[in-house]
């Protein structure tokens, strides 16, 4: 498992998301990257149903195609659970309403968000360009770069920054929060997923902000 940085790539006014993706793709191919497959990261949100009126807890369930056997569950306070994909079935059971009583968790509809796109391999790097969509509405572009050989962010951040700046420009200045906090510790896949969740939440908030307009 290497170190992963996820960044939002801004879509300039007037251009469509697809055009930006294509341009990024061309740049990568010029660098010598090879397209290997497609990837997808998606997130579903669940809300707890507390009859006593206690504080409502929100649970996010994410999948990452890079770890196909796993399912990530993140609570609103940051606690992360890495489980087998069968965890979804468990959550579905919790969501079911049985014998008149409501389920323990309720699925918040309309909040399923996902990032899909091509996956490129450039020697030790894996670059993924994902178009984020929520309910088939295009939201933005997320670029994920992974440096496989190293697992400690503090040692490879500089190298990654240089590499990313070569095709992304000045978007990349500071390391993501998850990476910054773990400079000297081992980087885990749950950190990647936390980064994605942060970006997804930003996208969702952006919708909410824009809608009253």
């Amino acid at each position: 498992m290497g170190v992963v940085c996820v960044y939002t790539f801004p879509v300039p006014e007037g251009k469509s998301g697809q055009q930006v993706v294509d341009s990024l793709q061309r740049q990568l191919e010029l660098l010598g990257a090879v397209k290997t497959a497609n990837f997808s990261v998606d997130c579903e949100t669940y809300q707890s149903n507390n009859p006593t009126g206690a504080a409502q807890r929100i649970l996010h369930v994410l999948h990452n195609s890079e770890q196909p056997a796993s399912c990530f569950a993140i609570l609103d306070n940051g606690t992360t659970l890495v489980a087998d994909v069968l965890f979804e079935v468990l959550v579905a059971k919790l969501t079911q309403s049985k014998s008149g009583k409501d389920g323990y968790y309720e699925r918040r509809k309309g909040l399923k968000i996902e990032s899909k796109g091509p996956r490129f391999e450039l020697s030790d790097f894996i670059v993924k360009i994902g178009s984020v969509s929520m309910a088939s509405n295009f939201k933005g572009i997320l670029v994920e770069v992974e440096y496989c050989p190293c697992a400690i962010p503090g040692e490879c951040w500089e190298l990654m920054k240089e590499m990313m700046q070569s095709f992304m420009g000045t978007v990349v200045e500071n390391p993501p929060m998850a990476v910054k906090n773990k400079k000297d510790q081992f980087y885990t896949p749950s950190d990647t997923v936390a980064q994605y969740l942060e970006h997804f939440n930003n996208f969702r908030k952006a919708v909410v902000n824009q809608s009253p307009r």
Partner: protein
Amino acid sequence: MAQSGVTVSIEAVHENQIQEVSLDGHETVIPPLSMSECLAKSAQKIDFGEEDEGIEGKQTSEEGTTEKEESAFQPSLWPWDSVRNKLKTSLTEIGVLLDVLNIAKEKKYMAIVQVQQDTSEPKSALQLLAKKKAISLQSICGGLNTAASVLISGAERLKRSQEEKGGVSSHDKFHIELLKLRQNWRLKKVGNSIIGDLSYRSAGSRFWQGGTFEVTKTTSLPSDQEGSTAQQYPLQVVIPSELEGSSYLQLEIKSVPDSMDLMSVTLQVPDGFGRTPLNAHWQSRLDTAQNVLFCKELFAQLAREAVQLKSNVPHVVVSNQIITNIFPGVQLSIVLCHSTGKGDKKTGPHSGKMDHKHVLEHSLHQLLREVHHRTLHLAAPHPVTAPFGMSKRRRLAGPTAMSRSDLKEMSDRSGETLLEQIIKQARHEVLRQRTMSVIDRLAGEIPDPQIMAHWSCLNSPLQSNVKIIITSNGYEGMRVTWQSLDLEIGVDGILVTTKDRRTLKLSFQEKEVEDIIRWQVSQHHIALSQNLARLIGWQVLSYNGCSGVGEMEGFACASSIQLVAPNNDRMLSVRSGPTSGLHVFLKIDSSGNLDPSLSSLVDPKWLNLGGTFRELDLEQIEGRNLATKLELIMAMVNKKR
């Protein structure tokens, strides 16, 4: 009054019977019988059949006339019919008599011959009858005999069972043996018979062939012919015919110069093997039958995999053999040898030694048992009701967030077939044997430095390690001079780590190991010289681990060293290469030839620039190895003049 001719007529009295009188007085008279009627009536009275009684019949006929008259009135028959018939028969008989008389007299067409068999015919009938009776008697006798024998044997058995004093009766013996049998094998009662199961089904096998045996009581009497040594068991097991005899799996690795050698792998089952006599103990018979079943399953699995596996090297499956090439020029053959034990006693020709790899055969057995175990046992934790599921590694893959490449590698490793595993083990075995033989051979061939091999005692079927140490005899204290080499023997090749931690990958060729060892030997010479020089006091002028000058070696490179004596007047040069060998050169300076007048002008140290190197014949110099020889040389040469 007498007149002439008085006619006297006598007439019968016309006393005809009156049939009826009509009312007017008219009498109807029965007409009198005519003459023919009268005669017919009389003829009827005659009975031609009875001669003696004919007269009497006539006499009585007058009395019975009236009765006959009544019978004459019967309208149906013609009255002369019976007469006619009787006359006809008498005519026929007379004709026959005439014919016979004619034949007897004339003897023209027929003759009367005495028939001789007339007397015997009545006799043969009697004989046949007698014969039939005899046969039936015999069969009855025979039947009675067998019945008698059965009854007698039964009676004897009963008598025997009654007679046994103290001790256990045979009936109880049977049950005790049955108890012992049940402690080792699964039995169940089906109807009247006891059926057992000797297959590995309960241990996890999924083979289509099942082995069921039947348990019977020994009914035959102990025969005296076999002698008293044959033990009689109260229990007998009946084993299915396809599992009779015994079998084993033979694994052979041999080198074939060209492609696969299919012809030479012929069945060479040692005779006398697999002949468990029928009255052997039931445990041994059941064990051998179970072994037969196991070998069958093993071979069936291997054959199936050999056919289905897609690999670079094709596997050949021929009836009971599987042949494949594990290395170019090395062939592995797996043969299922099954002897039914019923064959004739002639021994087959044992051409050539059979080089079984017993360890690999045992390993095959273990692998199949592992497969059985895996079908039954699932890694914990799992619910009791779920006997199959994912392996532990797969279950942990989710929580440990394994990437796609990790998962792929895991699936590749766990899906290895039996054949692949045994091929890997066989390859490792071949590599290890070859390396061993090379090291041993070189240790014998090269006398100068000693080659020692330390094999690691912790091995696996797929990897072995060996450490090769090259030292000079007598100078082992100088650890620095040691050349050590680590060989890691794997499945496909050998990984060599030298003293300076360089790694080299070798293929399966034996020559590569030999080359490496020879090269290390040459390196050792030079290292030894260096250290010896340091100890003795000579100075090292130059050390070249890989000299690029001089003749080229066949492989690797030569190394050389130049040493100079403490008083600078002698110089030694040692060059050692894996193919060129060891050469020692000595240079003695020519200061003795100089004009004494020049010596004050010229610094002695410049004197040793000239002079030529001359090779020393190391054979002539006393000493066991290079170290001692060098020491001697250096000491001699350094003598104070």
